[in-house]
């Protein structure tokens, strides 16, 4: 009877159930936990091949950083007039990637979007890994990362005998990014606790059981604990929402508070935040499509989840396109000759190739998602999500490099070219990101088991009511 009721409900065609397949709580536990429980000696060969590749790329990053520290910061291509170039492009790119995770875990939670439960865990993990990749650039651009703590954080020291300049957005950025990394880690861990307890209770091997017993802090799922847990989770979501908006706003202040034409605009904070969410969702999409296919999670990460994510890519992509147009309009409307020159130079100057790459990837690509057929096609969304990420990297490159390579004094004009160290280091950070992601997929539950069960409970209750009528 329950089966019949589901088939004849026209609502379910437009609004399909979020958990498909067997409607048992145990089935959810099983499908999410079992990939983490494969004994080490039975790990699939493809995982070893994958981590072998990403591990080698990570090794490349290690080699580049060693070379950088041993030789000096001059091995990078940034110089006068382009003093900020490749490193800060990569920093902003990686920080932006992280924003999707926090948006899904915090903002969609506050909006009671139940579809977030299947994707929040892996997106939050990507946030952490992306912040780790981003942190490498500001840390190593100091040239002496072991002394960076004195320069970045207000620690009493006899090294400098002075404090940080709190009037500078660069120090705001240190506070914003380190707070963001810490809060994301706490949020992720809190979400993991009940699932780590699930893994503990399923463990047959004594060592494994002890590891997860300690990691889950002895969580037992009592009602007395859940009430504090839920209250704390809501508070974390409530404070992470303004936090995620503040992080990329403050990153954009690094540019917007300067007097460089092309940077000195008030549109930067919202424009950066939209771009960050746009690129972050694209990255989540790329990796989740692979994880969903390899780990057979089609019943939990359904087409509806993917379609919803594509809609967010469409919205944020359109906001980004609108911001590009506004920027251009204001450059003309302001009547400021330098501002006008900068924007015309962006589109038709020496970096026109980068500008038009950015426009075609970021403005045109997401528009394909207006069509239901395209936004529900897995090959299409996979390819488009990669194009979006290329485009968003170019956006930061265009903003940073084109504004600097033409100075007020024509005698200072130049053309930035990255060195091989620049390029290899950037590729290397992908090694770090993907290696961490592979380890996460192998050893931790990639889907929030307890949260999906909460969604399933509502679904079961509705089916039960329907069958009763």
């Amino acid at each position, binding site marked *: 009877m329950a089966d019949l009721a589901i088939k004849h409900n026209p609502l379910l065609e437009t609004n399909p159930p979020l958990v498909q397949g067997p409607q*048992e*709580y145990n089935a959810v*536990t099983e499908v999410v936990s079992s990939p983490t429980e494969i004994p080490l000696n039975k790990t699939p060969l493809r995982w070893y091949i994958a981590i072998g590749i990403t591990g080698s790329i990570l090794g490349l990053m290690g080699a580049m950083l060693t070379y950088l520290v041993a030789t000096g910061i001059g091995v990078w291509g940034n110089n006068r007039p382009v003093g900020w170039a490749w490193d800060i492009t990569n920093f902003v790119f990686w920080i932006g990637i992280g924003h999707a995770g926090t948006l899904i875990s915090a903002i969609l939670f506050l909006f009671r979007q139940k579809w977030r439960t299947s994707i929040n865990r892996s997106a939050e993990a990507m946030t952490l890994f992306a912040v780790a990749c981003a942190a490498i650039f500001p840390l190593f651009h100091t040239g002496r990362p072991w002394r960076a703590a004195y320069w970045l954080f*207000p620690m*009493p020291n*006899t090294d400098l*005998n*002075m*404090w940080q*300049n*709190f*009037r*500078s*957005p660069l*120090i*705001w950025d240190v*506070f*914003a990014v380190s*707070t963001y990394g*810490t*809060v994301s880690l*706490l949020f992720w861990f809190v979400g993991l606790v*009940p699932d780590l*307890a*699930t893994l*503990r*209770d399923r463990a047959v091997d004594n060592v494994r*059981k*002890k590891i997860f*017993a*300690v990691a889950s*802090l*002895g*969580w*037992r*799922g*009592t*009602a*007395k*604990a859940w*009430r*504090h*847990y*839920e*209250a*704390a989770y809501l*508070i*974390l979501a409530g*404070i*992470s929402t303004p936090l995620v908006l*503040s992080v990329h706003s*403050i990153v954009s202040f690094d540019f917007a508070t300067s007097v460089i034409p092309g940077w000195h605009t008030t549109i930067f904070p919202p424009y950066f935040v939209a771009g960050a969410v746009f690129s972050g969702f694209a990255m989540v999409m790329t990796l989740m499509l692979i994880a969903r296919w390899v780990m057979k999670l089609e019943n939990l990460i359904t087409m509806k989840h993917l379609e919803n994510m594509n809609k967010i890519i469409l919205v944020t992509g359109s906001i980004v396109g609108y911001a590009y147009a506004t920027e251009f309009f204001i450059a003309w409307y302001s009547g400021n000759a330098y501002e006008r020159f900068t924007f015309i130079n962006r589109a038709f100057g020496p970096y026109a190739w980068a500008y038009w790459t950015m426009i075609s990837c970021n403005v045109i690509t997401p528009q394909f998602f207006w069509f239901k057929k395209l936004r529900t096609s897995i090959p299409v969304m996979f390819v488009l999500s990669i194009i979006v990420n290329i485009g968003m990297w170019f956006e930061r490159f265009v903003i940073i490099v084109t504004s600097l390579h033409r100075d007020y004094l024509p005698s200072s004009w130049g053309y930035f070219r990255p060195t091989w160290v620049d390029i290899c280091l950037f590729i290397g950070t992908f090694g770090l990101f993907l290696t961490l992601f592979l380890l996460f997929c192998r050893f931790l539950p990639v889907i929030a*088991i*307890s*949260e999906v*069960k*909460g969604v399933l*409970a509502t679904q*079961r*209750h509705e089916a039960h009511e329907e069958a009763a009528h």
Partner: protein
Amino acid sequence: MHINFDLQKTLAKLFGSEKTKVYGVVGEFPDAHDLVKAGRTVKEAGYTKLDAMSPFPVHGIDDAIGNPHSNIGWIVIFFSVTGAALAQLLQWYTGSVGPGKMPWWSGLGSYPLVIGGKPLYDFTFSIPVTFELTVLLSAFCAVFGMLALCGLPRLYHPLDTYSQSHRATDDGFFLIIEAGDPKFDPEASSQLLRSLGARNVEVVEG
């Protein structure tokens, strides 16, 4: 299977003075709404010290078994204000306190610099760092405060001796009548749970 990590209990076992203490009775229910329904009936029967175990937060269970609301919000607010105050103090102190005004034991001389004609301290430029520190302290407090209120980390708990406790994180819904309840009686309480349709009813000791 449980992890026996309780020092007191281990010592008691070693010296042979272990007294088994009844923790309560536990019964299993098939689904979340059965648990809520049973919880309400047990509470109406006059029991006051009830708890439940479930793989996800069950809605309505707190009202059903008379669980008060969490007061973690008030603790977090206190730490939020502390974070904001700390950030203001930090930025005012590091920016404006000149040489010779630092405490002698710190061995530091501050070096206030006028940059771009901006004041040494002003409320407007202190907002971003103030916001971030407010969030940081609130988040730490929300997480560690929550763990403290839940009594975690705790590696051993009497409930671990219950034969079905491993299913509380999988697909089991359990109602617990604690021994501290004035109406508690191992026989009668177990009987009440059974009459409500509970399976695997056990008296838990530890």
